[in-house]
């Protein structure tokens, strides 16, 4: 869309598109949405947001009536919500916007049901067990529903489960004191790899660009934290995280430059390089040689960013031609 805006504005500057025609040109080119696209957007927004709000309202209502409601009523309410949501999904079909929204609401309500089970029966289950059970419970719906938002929810729940596991067992000290961080990197890098495999297998839900960008950003954030930890952490196991960061970068380059081109994912990798390089250079060079050092660090950071941007612009142009 921004490419179309730039083209129309270039043609306006060149005199090919009259000033009065610019708004029409922006709609005709697809840069600005027309009525049909607006309708799809409003439909997605209102049905999606409406169903999520209803699911969350149910959670609040249960919490409010917590003490007053008998156990039977609590479970009946939550389970009825799940049944209604699944029925709505089957009625409208999981491929429709309404059906997909209903399935997402059912997945969220499942988490509420598991929390209710844990609190009502005092099973002694830990937080990580709740999240792990939630992930397992919604996995069949995620596989069958074939909706990108469900995969996003599953990824978030898996991340929470793994971090809660480390918090419970105090295993953050595992793997040289960085077990939790290693898990964060591996889970999210694995998710990005699996997403790309799903796309290669031409599975419809993995063609959603917005979801790929969220997964790539999550993976990039985890890898960047690992890279930063490798620089600032003085423990002997820290450099291994630096190697993990480098391997992640190599994977990004291989998957999104050599196999197919996705400039956004490559930009996430470049952003990670800029941040980690800035920290590395700052740590080792900042105070090395008077006023020259900060300038040198700044110039190197700009050089890395600018060089990377030039490469990515060229990659984008090659991909478009």
């Amino acid at each position, binding site marked *: 869309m921004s490419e179309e805006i730039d083209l129309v504005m270039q043609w306006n*500057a060149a005199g090919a598109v009259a000033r009065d025609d610019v708004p029409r040109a922006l709609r005709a080119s697809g840069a600005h949405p027309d009525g049909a696209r607006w*309708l799809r957007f409003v439909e997605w927004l*209102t*049905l999606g947001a409406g169903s999520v709000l209803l699911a969350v309202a149910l959670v609040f209502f249960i919490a409010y009536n917590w003490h007053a409601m008998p156990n039977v009523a609590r479970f009946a309410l939550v389970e009825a919500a799940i049944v209604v949501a699944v029925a709505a999904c089957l009625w409208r079909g999981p491929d429709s916007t309404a059906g997909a929204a209903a399935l997402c609401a059912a997945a969220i309500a499942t988490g509420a049901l598991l929390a209710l089970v844990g609190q009502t029966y005092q099973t002694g289950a830990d937080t990580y067990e709740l999240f792990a059970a939630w992930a397992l419970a919604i996995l069949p719906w995620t596989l069958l529903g074939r909706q990108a938002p469900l995969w996003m929810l599953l990824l978030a729940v898996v991340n929470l489960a793994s971090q809660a596991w480390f918090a419970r067992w105090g295993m953050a000290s595992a793997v040289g004191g960085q077990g939790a961080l290693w898990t964060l990197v591996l889970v999210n890098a694995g998710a990005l790899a699996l997403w790309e495999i799903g796309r290669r297998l031409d599975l419809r839900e993995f063609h959603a660009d917005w979801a790929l960008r969220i997964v790539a950003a999550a993976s990039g954030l985890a890898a960047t934290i690992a890279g930063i930890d490798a620089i600032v952490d003085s423990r002997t196991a820290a450099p291994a995280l630096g190697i993990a960061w480098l391997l992640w970068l190599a994977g990004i380059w291989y998957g999104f430059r050599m196999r197919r081109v996705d400039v956004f994912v490559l930009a996430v990798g470049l952003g990670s390089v800029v941040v980690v390089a800035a920290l590395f250079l700052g740590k080792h060079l900042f105070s090395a040689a008077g*006023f*020259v050092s900060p300038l040198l660090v700044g110039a190197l950071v700009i050089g890395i960013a*600018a060089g990377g*941007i030039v490469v990515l612009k060229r990659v984008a142009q090659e991909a478009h031609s």
Partner: protein
Amino acid sequence: MSAAVTWEKLVTAGIVRGESPATTAPPMAWYLRALAAVAAWIAAICVLSSTSILFVRAFDNAVTTLVVGAALLAIGAWVLARAKGRVFVAQFGLAFAIAGEAAIGLGIARASEPNHTLAWALIGAFEAIMLVAIAERTHRALAALAVGMCGFGLLARLGPLSLAAPLTTIAFVGAAWAATRDARSDALWRPASAGFGVALLAFAPLADLAHDAVRWWHAPPDTSSRVAAVLMAIAFVAVVALLCRRLALADSRVTRVALLGAIAIAALAYPVPGLLAALIVMLVAFDTGRPALTGLGIATAIGMLGYYYFSLATTLFAKSVSLAAVGIVLMGVGAALRRVARASEGQASEARRHA
């Protein structure tokens, strides 16, 4: 989409004729510009550090700070004027310009002490001038964000902090739609609207959260936050009305349903700080073809609802009823719009068949 395909669409729509003019390479994608901005910020900090080491007394008082800042800004502006699309040169210039403006801002603040109100006003005016004077897109977005921040600080000092959101809304919506007029307006207002949009998303909830905190700043008492909430509700309905007008909807029923839905949502979103601001950013950004800003608006709306959940201002029952009501209204509005729009589509295609 290629230039040839886009040109063909304009030819089909009867807007242009013949061969398309030659086009230059498109500007950077928004995420590359954001990356460049982050790198420039890091480099600007390095430049300031280097300057403070080289000239030990550079930032000792207001006058030397202003002189050093002006020199850095002049270098940055000179380099930017000669960048001619070269990324490294442009980023270098941007780093010096940001460092210079930060130093000038510091100098103005020192010179204005203890009058912080004057400092905010002068820095905001300076950044507004820089917004127009330096034509680099990333710089314009950052300058607009700085103008928004200064406006927020000024209102906090003067008292009506709650007005930050309505005023920033006017700036964002005005800039976003002004950008669609022609190429010259686009070059100035599209990046500026990005900066105002981010400022709105940041400060709308902050203004509400800080409503009680202003007493700690010994500032005059704020205007009623209800005034600001009413203004935001009016702004939201006005934006929806203007959107319907921009779309030139043939069927007035769609417009009526949209406006009724907007009024209902504005009334129900009243207790949720920042939600209407996020929805305004989302709608206007979508209308002007800005997917990143649209996503930011959606994410902020979700965040504001999450904050609403954790706040202790109302009972869980009230929250449950409010959220359920909003959810039902949203689904009702969506279903009604879909039905009316499809009926309208059906009538239009029927009329075309008969014609």
